[in-house]
């Protein structure tokens, strides 16, 4: 579904926090088995206020404040989902997801397969990711690689409010487990018109943000707006792809674009080594090698622990880093 069709009808200017909140309300009204779980999601409405006032509207049995335990949250949510509930747990910071890796690996991603398809785990983990708000090292991570490496789970990452509404509704209604990454830098930085009506977006399709003939710039999440800025600045006709769903990857759209342009830059906030960029470069190498006019470059975070507040800007990829990479690839000569 294109953004244009999603804009049909009445729209309201919303930021990402308001959009997430509105979409959760919509889905909880639509289906009584949708329940939220997490810590601080009740009376204070989440540390980012994404669940503000939901406990007043739906009560403590649907907006469940839990003990401070990521593995307990995910493990309990999986058990509820096995029994037909549609659980939306919140993980406050992606950097605090590690304790839940046990339940993620053993139960969440394997239950459907182990039961021979008889048990579904319809669970959408809202996971708050990314840096850029001076929240310090443990609160700023983008570790989607760990998730994307794992079969049995969809990984979704919206780049703005309008997409987030359709992707979150689709995630909650889907029978697969989904990790829904919300970049905290996007929560309040900008507003855009979000349709009031309900709509869904597919959980396996990349979005072509702008078309171009010279180079394909692949990004997702908070990097997409920087990608657009960089594309506007350079002296080249850049096609910008927003992956939207990181797993399963929309390989067709990626390959079609790179075969057309012959050049590619992958642009992501996560660390470089074995970041999703590495997989994209490998795929392009395997299936579009003879269409390339230049090597692919990766404009990414560095292979370091996320740095402290004073120097986080130097770590974070931005339009400048993307622009350098685009220019380098455009100027490459065999």
């Amino acid at each position, binding site marked *: 579904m294109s953004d244009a069709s999603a804009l049909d009808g009445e729209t309201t200017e919303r930021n990402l926090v308001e959009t997430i909140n509105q979409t959760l309300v919509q889905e909880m009204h639509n289906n009584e088995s949708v329940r939220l779980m997490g810590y601080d999601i009740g009376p204070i409405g989440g540390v980012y206020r994404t669940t503000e006032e939901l406990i007043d509207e739906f009560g403590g049995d649907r907006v469940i404040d839990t003990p401070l335990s990521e593995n*307990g949250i995910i493990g309990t949510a999986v058990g509820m989902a096995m029994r037909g509930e549609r659980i939306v747990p919140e993980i406050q910071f992606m950097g605090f997801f590690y304790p839940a890796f046990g339940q993620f690996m053993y139960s969440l991603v394997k239950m459907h397969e182990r*039961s021979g398809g008889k048990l579904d785990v319809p669970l959408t983990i809202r996971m708050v990711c990314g840096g850029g708000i001076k929240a310090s090292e443990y609160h700023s991570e983008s570790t989607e690689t760990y998730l994307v490496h794992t079969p049995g789970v969809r990984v979704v990452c919206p780049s703005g409010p309008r997409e987030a509404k359709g992707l979150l509704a689709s995630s909650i209604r889907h029978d697969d487990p989904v990790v829904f990454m919300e970049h905290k830098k996007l929560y309040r930085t900008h507003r855009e018109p979000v349709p009031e009506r309900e709509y869904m977006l597919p959980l396996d399709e990349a979005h072509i943000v702008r078309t171009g003939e010279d180079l394909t710039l692949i990004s997702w999440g908070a990097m997409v707006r920087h990608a657009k800025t960089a594309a506007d600045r350079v002296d080249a006709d850049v096609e910008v792809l927003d992956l939207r769903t990181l797993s399963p990857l929309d390989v067709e759209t990626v390959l079609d674009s790179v075969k057309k342009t012959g050049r590619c830059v992958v642009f992501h906030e996560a660390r470089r080594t074995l970041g999703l960029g590495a997989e994209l470069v490998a795929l392009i190498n395997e299936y579009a090698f003879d269409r390339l006019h230049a090597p692919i470059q990766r404009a990414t975070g560095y292979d370091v622990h996320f740095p402290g507040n004073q120097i986080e800007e130097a770590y974070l990829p931005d339009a400048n880093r993307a622009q350098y990479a685009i220019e380098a690839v455009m100027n490459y000569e065999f």
Partner: protein
Amino acid sequence: MALWSEQKPVEDFYRVLAPDGSLVNDPPDFDDDELIELYWTMKLTKRFEDKALKLQRAGEVSIISRCRGEEATPLGAAAALNPGDWCFPLYRQRSGLIYWDVPLERQLVGLMGAEPETIDEHLPGEDFDEPAVNFSPIYVPLGSNLPNTVGSALADKLNDRDTVSLTFVGDGSTSEGDFHEALNFAGVFDVPAVFVCQNNQWAISVPSHRQTASETFAQKGDAYGIPNERVDGNDIFAVYEKSKEAVERARSGGGPTFIECVTYRVVEHNTADEPSVYRDEKQREYWLERDPIDRFETYLLDEGVIEEGDIDTMEGSIDDRIQETVKTVRQVPKSSPEQMFENHLHGTSWKERHQRAELQRELNGDNPFVDWTGEGFE
């Protein structure tokens, strides 16, 4: 060498049936048929696992962890459930599965490494009765079943269903984080769950005193505000009675219970293990004298519920049943390799389609690396 594996063994627990088969407390209210069913289930479990062990030695079964000498614990606990309840087992609770008629055929073919899709196709639920209690898939990563049990119970509580979720944990896996998280959540949300600690005193080669400095495993329940019991895990009556109390308390809104059943792993951890390397035979002999089947058999004979002759007849028909099972299972074809791709996500993806095609070519003896465009297999 100590005869117990605990740091400071507390040798008292709730008991109904003493090791010599005499009653030390009032037994539960079972009629003769029910008593015989419990006895039959333990005997069938033992002989089924003996057969599986032989098949393992012959290379037909990949690996098996037997519950030999521990049959009373999973059986007594599972027998306390009602149809419609949920059970989240590990791999050493076979007597509980057999009690609720989880088909032997499906169990055995699983031990042979068949994919779930093969089992469903060749031993379908409609021909091989689905059990009346809902069993989750068997959990292998120890402790990971516990938080899921809490979630199952919480789902029932929030939907006002009077269903109970029961699960098992070993002495070793009480050391896992999942154990803490599950009992903590169970206490906080006051869910209708029963946690049965099958304390067989050994986690592969590591004895209980390396798992905890607590005097008992049962007392761990106190820290979570969960009522707890400590029972003789080789006494079918004691396990059943305390499990029944716990299940009924959960069903009537009284919240979770933690039950430690003290038993002993008289056999190997699994068929890849060799216990003589790390433990003394004397300890094993001490616990063999407390065997759950022997004492129950003595009781049934003393009470006149069965006679010596009945035992032979029963063993004969158990062995026939097992022979039939092996025969049926040997007719199930091997899982086909492409089944490895099944049931990962709903729907398909480019990568799934592409890798299926690669595998198919490899299986056909063709080079799979022939697609240079990403469209070669479409």
